[in-house]
C-alpha cells in the first residue's frame, strides 16, 4: 500500500479543520478516526527532519523542515488520493463539505491544438503515448512539490516503477509543437538532461545514471533495446527520453504557466488513467478550474485521438441488489446521497428502484457494480452495518490427511517425543551434500529467485530440519527425542503443477548411544496404532524392515520400512559424517515415513 506524506498544517488548512489547543483527544486522533472511516490509515506523525534523520542520519537532516508531517497509507487502487489535493478533495466531499467537481477537456481554437506525432519505430520499444495541457496554472512552493511527488507516487505504483507508463511534464512555453514521439538508436540521441550542465548521448547518460540513487532502477527497462524512446519538439529540442529522464530545457518551475504532460506506455489503459489522474488533481490550480486542454495524438496508422479523455461513465445500480449485498435497507435517495459523498455523483432513476451513478475520470478504480456497493458501504459506515449470521447450514468435516496427522502427532508426543516446527524451504546443501547425496539425484523443487541460501529448494525430507533443531538446542538434557509431522515437496511429472506434497512423519533420538531400539519401538507403536500387523514372512500384508544402504546412514544400521508391500520410509543410525555436518556431537537414530498410505 502506498504511503504519502502531507504537511499537517497545510492539510488542516485545506480541510478547514480547526486546530484546537485544549483537548483530551488530540487533533491527530481526530484525524486518524476520519481516516479509518474513509479507509485510510494515519501511519505515522513525524517531521521531514525526522524522516531524513531516520533514513540518512542526523547530519543529513540539518536545515530540513520541522513542520509536522502526516504519513498516510492509501489503498493501492486509489490513485486519486496520492497527493494532498486529491486527499483533501476526497475527504471534503466525504464530509459533505463540498460537492464533487466536474472535470472537462476543452479543445482550443482550430490550429492551435498541440499535436504529438507517434512514429512507427516506437512499436519496437514503447508503443503508446497520450498527452494533455494544463493552461494558465499557478503553482506555489507546496503545490509544485505536490505535483512532482504525485508523479513519483504514480511512477512507483500504477506505472510499475515506470515500466508500464512514464510521465513527462514540461513548460509548454519553452518548446514549440508539434511534438514527435520517436524511437532512435541511443547513439543518435544527444541532449542536455534534467539537472545536467552539458549534453550527453543516450549511451553516455545510461552510464552516468548507472550509479544514480534513484534513476539506476529504471535503466533496465530500455537498456538493451536497439532503440530508445525520445520526444522532441518542432525544432528538435528534446523534451524527454522516457522512461529515464526529461530534458533540462523544458523543465517546469514555480513560474511555469502552461504545462505539457505526456505519458508513454506499454499499456494504453494505464497511460490514460495516469493522465486523467494528473489532470483531475492539478487542474484546480488553473484559471479555468478543473479544465484541461486537449492534445491530439497522431498514430502511425493515421488515426488521431484526443486526450485527455476525462470520460464520465454511467452505471445503473439496482437499489434492492445494493441493499442486499451490504445488508442494509436504505431508500434510493439515501443511497444516491451516500454515493455522492464518495465522489460518485448519483441520482435516483425514474423507475425509483435504481440509482444512476456517474463514475468520474478520477475514479478509475470503479470497474464493476460491486465497487459501487463498496462505496455505499464505506459511506454508510462499515461499523454501522447490522451484523447478521448467515443461514447457511452445513456439516463440518476435517480433511482426512490432516485428521490422521493430528492423531499421530498426539500419539508420538505421548510416546515422549517433543514436536518441532521447521521450515519447508532450505538450502540445496541441507537436503543433498549434508546427507551425502548429490542434488541432481533428488527430485527437489528449485526456487528461481531466492534472496538467501536458506530458500533454494523445498525440502524433500524432514531430517535436516530436526537435526538443525538439535544443533540449536545442545543445552537441553539428553536424551533428546524430537519429531515433526509435516509436508515435504517432491517433483512429480504426473502432478498437475509438476510437483506434489507428501505428508511425512519423522522422529529422532539423540543420546550417548543412538538408541535405534527406541526409534524402532516408536515405529512398532505407530504400526500398532494404524492396525498394521508385523509381517513375519515379509509378504504383502503387514510391515517389516529390510536392510538397505543409504549414504545418510551408518552402514549396516539402516533399514527400509515396508508396509503392505510398499516402501514407506527409512530408519537407522545417522552416519557420523552427517552428524558432523549438522554440527552435532552425539549419535542420532532416526525414522522417516510417509503417512499418506494410511489415510
Amino acid at each position: 500500500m502506498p504511503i504519502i506524506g502531507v504537511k499537517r498544517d497545510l492539510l488542516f488548512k485545506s480541510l478547514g479543520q480547526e486546530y484546537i489547543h485544549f483537548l483530551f483527544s488530540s487533533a491527530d486522533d481526530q484525524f486518524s478516526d476520519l481516516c479509518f472511516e474513509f479507509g485510510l490509515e494515519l501511519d505515522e506523525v513525524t517531521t521531514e527532519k525526522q524522516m531524513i534523520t531516520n533514513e540518512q542520519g542526523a547530519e543529513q537532516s540539518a536545515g530540513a523542515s520541522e513542520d509536522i508531517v502526516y504519513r498516510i497509507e492509501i489503498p493501492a487502487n486509489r490513485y486519486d488520493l496520492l497527493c494532498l489535493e486529491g486527499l483533501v478533495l476526497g475527504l471534503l466531499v466525504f464530509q459533505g463539505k463540498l460537492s464533487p467537481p466536474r472535470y472537462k477537456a476543452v479543445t482550443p481554437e482550430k490550429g492551435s491544438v498541440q499535436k504529438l506525432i507517434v512514429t512507427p519505430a516506437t512499436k519496437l520499444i514503447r508503443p503508446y503515448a497520450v498527452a494533455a495541457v494544463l493552461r494558465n496554472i499557478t503553482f506555489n512552493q507546496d503545490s509544485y512539490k505536490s505535483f512532482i511527488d504525485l508523479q513519483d507516487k504514480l511512477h512507483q505504483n500504477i506505472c510499475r516503477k515506470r515500466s508500464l507508463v512514464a510521465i513527462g511534464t514540461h513548460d509548454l512555453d519553452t518548446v514549440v509543437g508539434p511534438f514527435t514521439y520517436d524511437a532512435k538508436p541511443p547513439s543518435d540521441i544527444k541532449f542536455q538532461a534534467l539537472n545536467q550542465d552539458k549534453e550527453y548521448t543516450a549511451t553516455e547518460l545510461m552510464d552516468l545514471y548507472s550509479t544514480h540513487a534513484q534513476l539506476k532502477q529504471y535503466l533496465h527497462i530500455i537498456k538493451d533495446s536497439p532503440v530508445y524512446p525520445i520526444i522532441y519538439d518542432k525544432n528538435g529540442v528534446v523534451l524527454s527520453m522516457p522512461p529515464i529522464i526529461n530534458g533540462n530545457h523544458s523543465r517546469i518551475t514555480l513560474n511555469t504557466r502552461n504545462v505539457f504532460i505526456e505519458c508513454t506506455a506499454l499499456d494504453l489503459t494505464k497511460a490514460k488513467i495516469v493522465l486523467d489522474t494528473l489532470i483531475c488533481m492539478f487542474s484546480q490550480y488553473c484559471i479555468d478550474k478543473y479544465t484541461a486542454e486537449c492534445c491530439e495524438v497522431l498514430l502511425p496508422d493515421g488515426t488521431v485521438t484526443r486526450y485527455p479523455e476525462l470520460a464520465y461513465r454511467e452505471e445503473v445500480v439496482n437499489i434492492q441488489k445494493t441493499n442486499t449485498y451490504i445488508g442494509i435497507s436504505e431508500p434510493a435517495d439515501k443511497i444516491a446521497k451516500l454515493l455522492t459523498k464518495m465522489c460518485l455523483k448519483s441520482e435516483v432513476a425514474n423507475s425509483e428502484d435504481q440509482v444512476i451513478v456517474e463514475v468520474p475520470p478520477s475514479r478509475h478504480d470503479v470497474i464493476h457494480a460491486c465497487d459501487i456497493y463498496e462505496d455505499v458501504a464505506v459511506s454508510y459506515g462499515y461499523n454501522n452495518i447490522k451484523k447478521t449470521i448467515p443461514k447457511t447450514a452445513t456439516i463440518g468435516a476435517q480433511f482426512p490427511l490432516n485428521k490422521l496427522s493430528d492423531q499421530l502427532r498426539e500419539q508420538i508426543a505421548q510416546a515422549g517425543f517433543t514436536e518441532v516446527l521447521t521450515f519447508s524451504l532450505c538450502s540445496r546443501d541441507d537436503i543433498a551434500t549434508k546427507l551425502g547425496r548429490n542434488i541432481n539425484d533428488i527430485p527437489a523443487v528449485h526456487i528461481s529467485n531466492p534472496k538467501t541460501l536458506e530458500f533454494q529448494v523445498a525440502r524433500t525430507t524432514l531430517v535436516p530440519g530436526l537435526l538443525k533443531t538439535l544443533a540449536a538446542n545442545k543445552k537441553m538434557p539428553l536424551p533428546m527425542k524430537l519429531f515433526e509431522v509435516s509436508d515435504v515437496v517432491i517433483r512429480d511429472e504426473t502432478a498437475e503443477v509438476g510437483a506434489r506434497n507428501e505428508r511425512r512423519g519423522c522422529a529422532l533420538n539423540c543420546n550417548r548411544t543412538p538408541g535405534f531400539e527406541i526409534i524402532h519401538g516408536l515405529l512398532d507403536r505407530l504400526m500398532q496404532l494404524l492396525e498394521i500387523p508385523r509381517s513375519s514372512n515379509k509378504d504383502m500384508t503387514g510391515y517389516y524392515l529390510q536392510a538397505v544402504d543409504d549414504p545418510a546412514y551408518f552402514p549396516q544400521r539402516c533399514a527400509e520400512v515396508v508396509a503392505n508391500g510398499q516402501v514407506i520410509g527409512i530408519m537407522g543410525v545417522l552416519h557420523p559424517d552427517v552428524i558432523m555436518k549438522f554440527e552435532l556431537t552425539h549419535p542420532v537414530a532416526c525414522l522417516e515415513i510417509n503417512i499418506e498410505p494410511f489415510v
Partner: protein
Amino acid sequence: MVLSAWELTEKTEMCSDLTERVLLYLDGHERVDTLHLAVLFRVDHQKVIGAVKSLQAVGDLVSVEQMVHKEWKLTDEGRKVAENGSHEAIVYKAVPLQGILLSDLTNNVPDLKIGFSKAMSYGWIKVTKQGKDSLVTRKVESITDVVQEHLRDILTDNSSQVDDEHKQVYCKRKLLQELTIRSYQLTKGKDFTISVEKAQSDLTVEMVASGSWREEKFKPYNLDALGAPLNCGHLHPLLRLRAEFRQIFLEMGFTEMPTNNYIENSFWNFDALFQPQQHPARDAHDTFFISNPQISSHFPPEYLQKVKQVHSKGGYGSQGYGCDWKIEEAQKNLLRTHTTAVSARMLYLLAKEGFKPSKYFSIDRVFRNETLDATHLAEFHQVEGVIADYSLTLGDLIGTLYEFFNKLGITKLQFKPAYNPYTEPSMEVFCYHAGLGKWIEVGNSGIFRPEMLLPMGLPEDVNVIAWGLSLERPTMIKYGLNNIRDLVGAKIDLQMVHNSPLCRLEKNGTLGTDVIQMLEQRWTSILSQLQALHTELQELQISSDKLPGPSDKNIEFVILSDPNHPPYSVIILLKVLTGRYKIEILSHVHSSISLVPSELQSFLNGLLNSSSGSRCIKVTLIWKKVGKDPLLIQCPMNNGTIAGEVNISRYLNRLLEQRPNPVLVYESKGEFYAGQVDMWLDSIYKSVTHGSKDMHLDIMPSISAVLVKQDWLIHSVSIADICFWSSLKQNPCLINFNSNLKKWFEKCQHIWFT
C-alpha cells in the same frame, strides 16, 4: 543428584549409627562441640553434622547452637619453617664464621633472596665489597630464630603464645593462615532421649505386606521442594493454536480444504482471483517462483478463456483491466502466496459439480519472498474461512467475524475499508488490545468479486464471503514473543516448547488479556476501596466538627523569592485563578535587594489587577536574595516552609484542587496522572532549574520530542507545563533549543498572558 536406593540405605544406616553415638555421648555429658565428637568418633566432621541434622528433624532431642571457631594453621611453607628454621636463619647458618663469597652463598642456599634481606635487616650478617664479588660475614655471634619458635608453638596448639601482630606478619609471609570453622555446640533438648526410633523415609512393599507400617514412624515429606521432572513429549505451541482454530471452524460447521500443495501456478494463485498480471504481488520481489518444475500446462480450457476475457476485456458487468492477458504469465509455477489459491480451486469445483451452499476453511503454510524481520518470515501459516451461499451480505461477513473472533476471546472489533484485488467490499479487521491500549489489525476479509466467481460458473446470486489471518501473529501475542524465530524454525528454544501452557483461547483471551484483566480487576477493587475510604473520611469530617469547609476559607501565604529567579509559575497559577478568586498581592523588597527590575514589577502589576470571585487569595511577595529556590511560608507559627518552585506549585495546586471545579487538577485525577506530573516536575527541578549545561542537553531533546507529539507534557495542561515554561523563561537560552520548543513557549505565553 539422584541417589540409587542402595546408596540411600547405606547412607541412612551410617547416619543412624552415628546419631545413636551422639545421643549416648550427650547422655553422659552436659554439652559437647561437634568438632570434639568428630575427633572422638574419628569420623569426618561433616558426617557428625549430618547426624545432628537428622536428630533435629526428629524433634527437640538436642539443642543446637552454632559456633564459629577461628583456627591458625601453618601453610606448607610454614611447616617447613617450623621444621628447618626461617629463611633468614637458614641464611645465617649458611654463613661460616670466616665469611663466604655472595656468589657461593647463592649457590648453597636456595631461595636466598627472601632470607638474605631479612637477615640483613635484622643485622645478623653484613656484606663487604671484595673485588667483583662481595664477602658475606656474620655480624652477631648467635641468633634466636623467633619465627621458627612461634610457628612451632602454633603447630603444637600453643598459638595463644604468639601475639596477633606476629600472626598477621606470618600471614603476610604466607607461612600462616586463619581458618574459620563452623561447628555446633550440642546440649540436651526438651525431648532428649537416647533411644531414637528410626523414622522411615517411605512406605515400602515389605511394610505393606507385613503390616509393619503400623508400628513405623515416617519422616515428613518436604512439601516445599519441587516434584521430579517428568519425561514427557510435547506438542508445538503454534500447532496447538492451530488445533484450537481448527476446532473453532469445525464447531461452526466448516469443511477443511485440502491445502497440501505448496507448489501452485500463477493461474490459480493470481489470475483466477482476478489479480491483474501487472500486479506488484506478482513481482519476483514478493513471490518465490520455481525454476524446476518451471511451468504448468494443464488448465481447464473453457474456464481459462473466461478468465482471460474478464481480465483483458471485462464482462459480467465489469470493465476488466483493459490490458493484454498472457497465458505465459499464468503458467509460471510458484510457491503459493496464499491459501486463497486453494479456495479458488474449491469454488471452481463447487460450481462444476453443481453449487450447494458451503463453508470451507484451511490453515496451512504460505510463502512470501519478502524482507525478513522480527515479525516476518518467508513462510507462515494462513488461517482462512470461506462461506458461499445465495445472497450473502456484508452484514453476514461482519456477524460471522464477530462469532469467529468471539471464540478466540476477542469481543471488540472494528472494520476499516481496504483494498484487495479479489474482494470488494474489502475490510481490514481490527481488534482492541487491552494490553497495548490500542486497536491492532488482526486480519483481512471481504466479498469475492463477481469477476472471480462468475467465470467459474457459480450462480449469479451466489456471494462468497471470506476472511484470513496469520496463525503466527496471535500465537506470538498469546505467548508474549517478540521474535518470530523464537516460535518457528530450527532455532527455537525447546524449553519454550516444554514450558508453553495450554492453549485455551476463550478462557485466557488470545491476546494475553488475562493478566491485564486481572490487573484491571485489582485496580478496580483498589479504587473502590479508596472510594469507600474517601466517603468514610467525608462523613467523619462532617460529623466531627463544624469547621468551615476548605472552600470558604481564604488562602494566605508569603513567598520569598529572588528577583534573579522570579517564580513565574506561581504568577501563572495565580493568573489562571483570577476568574475564580479575588487575588490580592502585596510586594515588598527586602533590604538585601537593592532594586527589583522594573520589567518584573510591571509584569506583576499588569498581571494581577483583576479581582473577581468571592474567595480570596492573599499573597505577600517579598523580594529577597534566596537563590534559585523561592520559599513559601504558609504559617509562620508552624515554621511551614516550602522551598523550590516546583514544590510551591505542587502545594498550591493541591490546595486549589480541593475546592469545587478546580482549574488545574493534579492528584485528584488519580495516582497515575499525579505520578506523571511528579516525574516531569522532578526532571524540571533537577535537570533544568538546577541542571548543568550537560544535563540540559540530556533532557531538552526528550521534552521537545514530547511536545512535538502533543500539546502538553502530559495529555492535558498541568503544573508540569507551567513550571517548565517558567524554567524556560528564567533560562532564555533554552527557549531557542529548537524551533518546536520555541513555538511551544510562544504558544503558552499567548495562552497565559493574553
